[in-house]
């Protein structure tokens, strides 16, 4: 079934069609959510929430954007909400990272992942969105421009600034962790 028929069937409450929609889009949603939150369990939870929202609001979907663009927007909003809710949890990560630094063991991937996502999530929101879609989903500037409703050149500039800022933030972390 193509997206148009799929949406029509889901609107009618066709369970099989909804199953197909989940199969078609779950990888995309999990990949995007993981890019934002950096934790596979959380990415799965977000994915479930995204599908519930898709199901509930499918009647408000208008064909003026593609289904994937619409789903990306829902996923971004859900992921950023999740990051905001988990901010307190991130304070906990800071503590764990401190412990690691004090023992001066080599940094493990799990810690590195936390630091990386802390740095990405501290970028200005639009830079964070553009960077994540480009880096984790390999979307083109044009696709990101459609999702973010911005011009291609502004997306290009957001990604450029995101990469420079990320290097600065990781440098700050590296510099201080060596003291």
């Amino acid at each position, binding site marked *: 079934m193509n997206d148009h028929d799929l949406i029509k069937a889901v609107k009618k*409450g066709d369970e099989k069609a909804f199953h197909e929609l989940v199969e078609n889009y779950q990888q995309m949603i999990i990949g995007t959510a993981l890019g934002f939150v950096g934790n596979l369990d959380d990415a799965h939870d977000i994915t479930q929430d995204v599908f*519930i929202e898709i*199901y509930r609001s499918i009647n408000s979907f208008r064909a003026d954007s593609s289904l994937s663009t619409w789903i990306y927007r829902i996923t971004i909003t859900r992921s950023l909400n999740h990051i905001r809710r988990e901010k307190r949890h991130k*304070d906990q990560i*800071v503590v764990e990272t*401190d412990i690691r630094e004090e023992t001066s063991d080599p940094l493990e991937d799990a810690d590195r992942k936390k630091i990386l996502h802390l740095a990405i999530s501290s970028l200005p929101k639009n830079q964070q969105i553009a960077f994540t879609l480009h880096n984790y989903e390999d979307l083109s500037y044009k696709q990101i421009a459609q999702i973010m409703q911005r011009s291609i050149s502004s997306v290009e500039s957001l990604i450029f600034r995101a990469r420079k800022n990320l290097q600065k933030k990781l440098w700050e972390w*590296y510099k201080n962790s060596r003291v």
Partner: protein
Amino acid sequence: MNCSKTRLKLLDFIDGNLDQKNTANVEKHLSGCDVCRGFFTELQQFNILMHTEKKPNVNPFLSNRIVETMVLQSDTPSQLHRRHFSKLTAAAAIAVLVVAGIFGGLEIGNRITSGLSSSQADHPEISSLVNELNHEPLEQMLFNLNTPAQ
């Protein structure tokens, strides 16, 4: 090329996005600067991590779990859309939420304040990352997302 200029080119260097001249300049600087070389090695690890995080394995039971959740609701989307709480239920729910919000907010506020003093104060480099989250209101981002670029 000095240290700060080199550091800002490292991600592009790692990705092979630099022209010949800049590549040579970065290589020359790295060969003579331990600090930048150490950071470059660390940045390479971060870059590898970003690539390994791509295309994650999807839990094979996820789609069944999601569809079951939806079927349990046994509503078509249009029925769901039209269904409303009774006014009484909604009013009661709002009252509970307001009370819970006030007490919950006070409690969370206390915990955050005490949490910051113990963990963030000692490590300004990480706390600066956390704190910046406060300066990016989500509403603004959503507004930007929903507003077409001029």
